């Protein structure tokens, strides 16, 4: 992995071993001491080693690789996920048979529900019970999600850091890959936009599908944005605090949610309201088959988002009341 190679290079530059571990650096430190580098030099070396170890661990928390997915763990936790999605969210997933039985596929979904993302929970359960935990399935997530306390669990479910490299690697491995182009922007949209698809013009998924030569399967969910009273993305606040540059966070969401009341940032999550969730899987789209050998990215993007918006509106028309469904 590129990150690992960079770390190894960094570790070598600092005189450590490729894994950069403190234990591996001890001989180097001893050597420096014996050569008469003095206590100060040794101290600096040790501090550097500890800093490197902290950095390595932090980097590990911020990244995940495909091998972290643990089918046994997923299988043993299907019951808990089923309970949550059945009893609390009254979840329903339709037309999973639209996902090709074998081979790599790019699942493109809208995202709702703030940091609790109940739509991911439901779709992941449905995918694993339908195709079995043996089928490789990965989800892309913001690196801060993986750094959070639930990051360890998500890794075992197949969640990896959102990056073009990870996406390509998953598809190259023949896996199904779930992406949320709207990401942190869409998931925190205000509640009055709950029936609106908002990918914020992010078209990377189209390029990814074209580069990998895989079909796009749109996945549309509804109900997630009714699990709290989402008031604002907080985009301006994020820019003012510069977290858009430092932490890749485009939003600092503001909502009314349990148990906090006014919830700014949603960093600790919230207790989602038991809104009924419905997910519909649409028929696969082969961009080259449908738009020619050199498809126009904008055209494919418009086609996919229009289809998804129409489906979202159809699902919205089925709902009689918010939360109740």
């Amino acid at each position, binding site marked *: 992995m590129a990150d690992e190679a960079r770390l190894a290079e960094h570790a070598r530059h600092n005189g450590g071993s490729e894994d950069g571990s403190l234990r591996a650096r001890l001989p180097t430190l001893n050597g420096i001491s014996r050569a008469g580098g003095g206590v100060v030099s040794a101290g600096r070396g040790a501090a550097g080693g500890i800093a490197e170890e902290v950095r390595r661990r932090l980097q590990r928390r911020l990244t995940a690789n495909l091998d972290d997915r643990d089918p*046994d763990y997923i*299988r*043993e*936790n*299907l*019951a*808990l996920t*089923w*309970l949550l*999605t*059945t*009893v609390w*969210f*009254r*979840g*329903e*997933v339709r037309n*999973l048979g639209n996902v090709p039985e074998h081979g790599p596929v790019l699942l493109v979904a809208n995202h709702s529900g703030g940091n609790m993302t109940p739509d991911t929970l*439901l779709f992941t*359960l*449905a995918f694993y*019970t*339908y195709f*079995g935990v*043996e089928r490789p399935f990965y989800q892309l997530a913001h690196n801060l999600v993986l750094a959070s306390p639930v990051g360890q669990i998500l890794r075992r479910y197949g969640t990896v850091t959102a990056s073009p490299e990870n996406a390509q690697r998953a598809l190259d491995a023949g896996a199904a890959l779930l992406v949320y182009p709207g990401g942190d922007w869409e998931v925190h949209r205000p509640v009055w936009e709950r029936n609106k698809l908002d990918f914020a013009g992010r078209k990377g998924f189209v390029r990814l599908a074209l580069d990998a030569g895989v079909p796009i399967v749109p996945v549309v969910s509804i109900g997630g944005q009714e699990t709290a009273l989402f008031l604002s993305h907080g985009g301006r606040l994020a820019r003012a605090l510069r977290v858009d540059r430092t932490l890749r966070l485009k939003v600092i969401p503001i909502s009314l949610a349990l148990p906090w009341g006014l919830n700014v940032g949603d960093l600790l999550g919230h207790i989602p309201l038991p809104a009924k*969730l419905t997910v519909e899987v649409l028929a696969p789209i082969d961009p080259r088959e449908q738009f020619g050998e050199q498809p126009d990215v904008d055209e494919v993007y418009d086609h996919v988002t229009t289809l998804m918006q129409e489906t979202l509106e159809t699902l919205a028309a089925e709902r009689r009341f918010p939360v109740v469904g």
Partner: protein
Amino acid sequence: MRLNESIVISAPPKLVWDYLAEPSNYLHFMSGITRWEVAGEQRTGLGARYRMLIRVGSAEIGGLIEIVEWHEQRDMAWSSVLGVDQRGRWRLRELDDGRTRVEFRYAYGVAGSGIPGWIAELVSAPQLGGHLRRSLRQLKSQVEHERLRAEAARRRGDRAAAAG
């Protein structure tokens, strides 16, 4: 969790068995089943494998199953190969009056899922029990209809033979 339902069908065991042994019938009479496909070369009999899914709560649950017991007109049992742990059995017994008592046994769970798994089994039991009861009622209706059709066809044949 173990579930057990039974019904008496006004047809001989052979007719019931023939209906149960045909995999394409399962989508017609099994309640909640969304998939029942032959997996592999062998279509029926001991060792045949099927990919099955049944809608329970928020998900379609099932996996790959294999026929592990096959005693013609008496017992057919399957066990899971992949997916949730499950074991099912059709138990056919002929009554004195020529009718057939059909018992459907179904045991399921996920090993290692602990207390949530135990609660999930309890929560899903009423829905699965309902599926089992409806499946048996539909099986009875289909097989008895088959029997009536077969008898009508035989009578037509007899009449045609007598006239000819």
